[in-house]
């Protein structure tokens, strides 16, 4: 077969390496960089919102700017910060956890990253071209309709999110196929690590939720650019239709965000308690059930839209049902810690901090699910407090936990534990300071999405405390950035299994993982595959194959060009410059054509090369 290995591929270095990479580990780092950048932008927007609200009748920003800030804060944090950082962890960890050499579609993986990135850039270009989107991250019509939103802001929203959404959908399909088809021998579904399970269900949610958003955005785009009448009531359109379509996507979206965090917490708590995850099969069951129920509850965002008592009652009950599988998870985490020898590393601090915080967000979720009570809470700061408890207190704590946990596997160096703990305590205290008090502001009647409030309503002190908390969260984030820099400069090198208690396959290979991940595909003999080998007295996994040449996909610049094509097309159509739009699409289709016509033979890493590097399986 030697003739089949004749294809040689030029190894690229430096910037070109990063622009053309199809290696899931490098794409993971790109997701982390881009997602982290957007997280800082969204965070800055949040700080500006809190500065505006620190005292009554403040004029730090104008009402219009405030609307842009709150819209872009929500949109950026959800689509451009939280999801990409999850994709970063997925890319960095999932193939390693299932014993695979790569993802199923390395080329599409790169395409997914670049479309997300250019979609996000397009969205943020709006700041410099005369106004960002300002109709809220939900972009409800008629506020977002061409009649009431006459500048280009919402156009950037519909087109930017459409392009970013393509990337997400591609990622979802990629990870489903990877997990179904590419598990190592012996890795049955019920032996998969909990994080892999969480990503599996999350990817399925992405697959079935994002196309609904695609249609919603297309409809709004047609209304805005081509005078269609989907939401134009004067010509028979229906504004409630937008709410339905948006939330049929939007509610699964919140589970897309939180399920991976559940997965991270399960891994971290199990590792640092030195115990098998309590109730693994019930954990899997709960994850699948949450994913399923996530599609059944969208109208609880619309209790006050007037759907009638029957619909409200049904969606109320369905929503409360989700508390059951979520409760199963909470108790399983507690029982995993019970009797374990717990190590409070920074990763574990974030995980342990997550548990009570998320319970608080869950409890207010059940309160909001009670439709009659929701008429009181609706559009008040109570809602703001609730979803920040589940998204920041759930998802962001989960991401921080995962980053501290897997950082050595991603970058080969240990994050500084002191700075990690400092990050945790400032961020954690800042978080509760910002948002706990907002529950009470909401119950006292402060509406969300207002740019200022009058003196003498009793809101002043609470808003001031909330603003101070927001600065503390910002400080926590700065500590994390300092930690990254300190680690990059002088961090301690990480071994294969730096936490010493690693349970899953990613800890059996060097840190950072070599580009082919596993020199020999491991044989999986049970749940917590590595831990099982350790308990049986083995130092490493039993290989499932002899050492042989490893096939690798070639790098490609096409995904970058395709995303740039979409970016140009989006801008062109937005400004009704159809030749520019057409040119952008032409770039896209040309790249697709080249990709289809040019076979990717990839290249092989020969066994001698594996020996030279002196790596052990």
């Amino acid at each position, binding site marked *: 077969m030697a003739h089949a290995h004749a294809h040689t591929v030029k190894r690229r270095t430096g910037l070109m390496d990063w622009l053309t990479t199809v290696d899931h580990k490098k794409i993971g780092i790109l997701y982390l960089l881009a997602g982290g950048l957007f997280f800082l932008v969204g965070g800055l927007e949040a700080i500006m919102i809190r500065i505006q609200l620190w005292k009554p009748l403040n004029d730090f920003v104008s009402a219009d700017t405030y609307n842009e800030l709150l819209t872009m804060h929500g949109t950026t944090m959800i689509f451009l910060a939280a999801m990409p950082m999850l994709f970063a962890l997925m890319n960095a960890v999932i193939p390693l956890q299932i014993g695979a050499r790569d993802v199923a579609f390395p080329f599409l993986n790169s395409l997914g990253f670049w479309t997300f990135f250019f979609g996000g850039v397009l969205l943020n270009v709006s700041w410099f071209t005369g106004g960002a989107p300002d109709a809220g991250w939900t972009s409800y019509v008629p506020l977002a309709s061409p009649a009431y939103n006459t500048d280009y802001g919402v156009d950037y929203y519909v087109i930017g999110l459409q392009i970013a959404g393509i990337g997400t959908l591609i990622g979802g399909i990629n990870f489903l196929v990877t997990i179904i088809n590419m598990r190592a021998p012996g890795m049955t579904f019920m032996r998969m690590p909990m994080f892999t399970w969480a990503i599996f269900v999350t990817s399925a949610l992405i697959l079935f939720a994002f196309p609904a958003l695609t*249609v919603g955005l297309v409809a709004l785009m047609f209304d805005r650019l081509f005078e269609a009448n989907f939401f134009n009531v004067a010509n*028979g*359109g*229906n504004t409630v239709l937008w709410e339905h379509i948006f939330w049929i996507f939007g509610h699964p979206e919140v589970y897309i965000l939180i399920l991976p965090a559940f997965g991270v917490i399960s891994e971290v708590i199990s590792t640092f308690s030195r115990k098998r995850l309590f109730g693994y099969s019930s954990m899997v069951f709960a994850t699948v059930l949450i994913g399923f129920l996530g599609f059944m509850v969208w109208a609880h965002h619309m209790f006050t839209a007037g759907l009638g008592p029957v619909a409200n009652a049904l969606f109320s009950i369905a929503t409360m049902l989700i508390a059951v599988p979520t409760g199963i998870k909470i108790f399983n985490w507690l029982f995993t810690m019970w009797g374990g020898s717990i190590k409070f590393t920074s990763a574990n601090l974030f995980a342990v901090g997550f548990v009570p915080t998320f319970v608080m967000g869950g409890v207010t979720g059940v309160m909001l699910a009670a439709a009659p009570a929701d008429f009181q809470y609706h559009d008040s700061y109570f809602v703001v407090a609730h979803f920040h408890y589940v998204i920041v207190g759930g998802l962001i704590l989960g991401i921080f936990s995962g980053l501290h946990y897997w950082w050595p596997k991603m970058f080969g160096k240990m994050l500084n534990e002191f700075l990690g703990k400092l990050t945790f305590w400032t961020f954690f205290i800042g978080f509760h300071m910002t948002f706990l008090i907002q529950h009470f502001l909401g119950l006292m009647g402060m509406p969300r999405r207002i740019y200022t409030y009058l003196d003498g309503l009793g809101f002043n002190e609470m808003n001031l405390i909330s603003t101070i908390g927001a600065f503390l969260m910002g400080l926590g984030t700065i500590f994390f950035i300092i930690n990254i820099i300190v680690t990059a400069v002088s961090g301690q090198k990480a071994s294969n299994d730096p936490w010493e208690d690693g349970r899953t396959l990613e800890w059996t290979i060097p840190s950072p993982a070599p580009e082919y991940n596993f020199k020999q595909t491991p044989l999986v003999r049970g749940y917590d595959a590595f831990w099982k080998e350790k308990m049986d007295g083995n130092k490493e996994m039993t290989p499932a194959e002899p050492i042989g040449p490893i096939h690798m996909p070639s790098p490609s610049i096409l995904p970058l060009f395709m995303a740039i094509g979409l970016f140009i097309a989006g801008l062109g159509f937005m400004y009704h410059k159809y030749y520019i739009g057409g040119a952008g699409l032409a770039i896209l289709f040309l790249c697709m054509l080249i990709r289809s016509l040019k076979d990717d033979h990839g290249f092989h890493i020969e066994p001698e090369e594996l020996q030279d590097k002196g790596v052990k399986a």
Partner: protein
Amino acid sequence: MSAHTHADGHLPHEPEKATLEGRNKVLGFWLFLGGETVLFGTLFSAFLALRDKVGEGNPTANELFNLSTVAIATFILLTSSLTSVFAIQAMHAGKKAAMLWWLAITVLFGLGFLGLEIYEFYEYVHEGHGFTTSAFSSSFYTLVGFHGGHVAFGVIWISLLIGQVLKKGLNVVTAPKIYVAGMYWHFIDVVWVFIFTVVYLMGKVG
């Protein structure tokens, strides 16, 4: 297993699933079609919500639709699904020439369908049923147009695949591409069955 092992020997019975890359492609495409189902499901929901919002003085669905044209288009598209099955069967039997002929016939049927659809839209516009006329018209053109766009994409895609097979031959790299294009073609056929029922038949009677 290297992708080239079968490049110049006998093809396995199911060449599309002979390599891991092929199996990944087929499974990934099934999942993609799952997403497409949600996409069209949402478009159908929007159409159903808005199909009675015709507006005063505009033609209604009942006045507009000419079932005989639509029936011919339906017949053509359903037949093209059959010819695409013949193409896949020929591929499994290793008959490259027969496969290419059946694919070419599929493309021709697709073009015939598109021609009829363009003619139909042209007629509707002249009867005062433009894209911006009403909520009904916007949702109609979006749903049926999305489907038409899918047919057009499929026609171009399958044509390019014919060219590729002519140049590179039928092997374990090209076979999965043909196979998923066939899956795609069936999918847009199934969507059309729903469009025929929900848009046209219900438009005539409902």
